């Protein structure tokens, strides 16, 4: 049998997610998937049941029935937040494993063994936290179901169920999380934290110190998670009997809604509009919009009746003048040259001071070389002003080639 591509299996799980939920429910209800039921469900969904075996979703048992493979069940339950309750005994086993690894850690000096033990401890703490979290969440869901009582279970039945949860799951879980009790996992974890804290600072081996650092941080965050879960137990679960005494249809509705807040259509309110109908500035706002939309008449300037030509303002065109300069290089006595150029250019206006400076600014460009003789000066005349300026020679900049290394 060829192994299925992981992506193909994931695509199948995604496409047939509702089918998978039904399969999980079937497995949960009967603790096994009966051959007949499986084939009926597959037929309904048009799925070849052999594919489920190939994709390692179910395992065929000796007698012809099937069982869901654990990793698949855990994965689907995890993403759909439908956790299965573990027996308190299954949770308490972490006490033994954590204690055992802890004792070994204290006496171990071989670096390789230490590596293995610390990594093992990190894994165990992680599993423990995941288990506590999923169990607390599962108990919380169960308690909410009891409180909402959508199925209308009789009062006596409800109390019986709550008592069972309290005695069988909630109280034992609370004992496991009780930090004051020396037999609790939390107490054991506090010893692990002390040891990890000491070793992450003093252990002479860098890699061991790093691993202890990781363990230390993990135990710290584990503690935060455990305190959070312990608070849920004390506040929500231990007083379960008191809480289920009263029932409210409204509360049951809210609890159902909070379970899936995006599933139900909430009352439709009005989305507030930005513009009020009675805006005091409505007239001006409308006029602005109107003025932009209305087509303007074309303006025709009539100069044929002997009217004076309309003078448009002169705008200094930097690109144009720079091009003229570049084409005229080399230029001797730049200020005199630009003075003449501008006088020819601006036929209807005098070459004034501002334009002179605009032209002067152009030569301070990296493209040009500027040289001047200090003894030679030029006079540039404007109306009411004469400037005494040096005679500048402008030429194209010679770029030196870098010397080749021998």
């Amino acid at each position: 049998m060829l192994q299925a591509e992981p992506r193909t299996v994931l695509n199948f799980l995604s496409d047939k997610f509702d089918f998978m939920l039904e399969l999980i429910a079937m497995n949960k209800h009967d603790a096994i998937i009966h051959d007949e039921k499986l084939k009926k469900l597959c037929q309904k969904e048009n799925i070849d049941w052999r594919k489920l075996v190939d994709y390692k979703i179910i395992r065929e048992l000796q007698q012809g029935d099937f069982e869901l493979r654990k990793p698949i069940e855990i994965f689907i339950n995890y993403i759909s937040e439908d956790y299965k309750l573990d027996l308190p005994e299954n949770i308490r086993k972490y006490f033994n494993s954590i204690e055992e690894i802890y004792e070994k850690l204290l006496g171990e000096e071989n670096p390789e063994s230490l590596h293995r033990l610390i990594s093992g401890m990190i894994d165990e703490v992680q599993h423990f936290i995941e288990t506590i979290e999923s169990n607390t969440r599962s108990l919380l869901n169960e308690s909410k179901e009891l409180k909402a009582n959508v199925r209308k279970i009789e009062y006596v039945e409800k109390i019986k169920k709550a008592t069972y949860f309290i005695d069988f799951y909630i109280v034992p879980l609370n004992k496991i999380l009780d930090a004051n009790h020396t037999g609790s996992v939390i107490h054991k974890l506090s010893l692990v934290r002390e040891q990890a804290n000491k070793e992450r600072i003093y252990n002479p081996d860098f890699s061991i110190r790093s691993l202890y650092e990781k363990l230390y941080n993990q135990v710290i965050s584990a503690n935060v998670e455990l305190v959070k879960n312990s608070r849920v137990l004390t506040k929500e679960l231990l007083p379960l009997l008191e809480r289920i005494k009263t029932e409210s249809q409204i509360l049951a509705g809210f609890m159902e809604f909070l379970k899936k807040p995006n599933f139900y259509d909430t009352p439709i309110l009005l989305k507030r509009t930005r513009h009020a109908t009675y805006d005091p500035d409505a007239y001006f706002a409308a006029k602005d919009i109107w003025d932009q939309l209305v087509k303007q008449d074309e303006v025709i300037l009539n100069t044929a009746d002997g009217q004076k030509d309309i003078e448009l303002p002169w705008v200094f065109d930097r690109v144009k003048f720079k091009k003229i300069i570049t084409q005229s290089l080399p230029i001797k006595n730049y200020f005199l040259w630009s003075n003449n150029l501008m006088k020819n250019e601006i036929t209807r206006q005098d070459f004034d001071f501002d334009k002179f400076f605009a032209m002067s600014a152009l030569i301070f460009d990296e493209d040009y070389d500027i040289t001047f003789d200090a003894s030679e000066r030029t006079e540039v005349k404007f109306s009411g002003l004469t400037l005494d300026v040096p005679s500048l020679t402008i030429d194209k900049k010679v770029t030196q080639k870098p010397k080749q290394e021998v």
Partner: protein
Amino acid sequence: MDYPNQHQQIVKELLDGKFILSQSNPLYEIIKSNIEFYKAFFHTSFGYDILQKKTYFFLTSNESNEKFSRDITIFIGIISYELDNEGKNFQDLIRFSIFEYDQVDVMVRGSVYFNVLESIDFGDTRRFLARLSRINLIEELEGDKFRFTEAIDLFFDFALTVLEQKKEKTAKK
């Protein structure tokens, strides 16, 4: 054409998304006596519907991107759950008692449902309550206190419809 008294104010408040409450707002009676006019007015002018409940009016539109209502329902659901958790009659408390801002802030942040609240545009409790005040769902009182208005019934009624839907779904299975 003659418009009802304070027509401009009525239109403004309803378009601002406010609940017009029978107990505290004189506009309620004006709308009530001109309800047919306002139904036609809002429907023709804006495509909105004016909803009349026993003790309040409000406008509703079919815009699907209105999210505030969901946020409010989550918030009220959490408050109800937490008050019940404390062994109190949450309906009476929400309908008739006075709350302090800080008390509500502690209540929602310590709730097992706080993760649901975090997934929406909740932000700061005080700012969220200010938004509720703008639509007259709460009435702000002196000394950092407030009380819910009768418009709260809209959300209590919604909770009942959720329960009905759930029951129907369960019965089908």
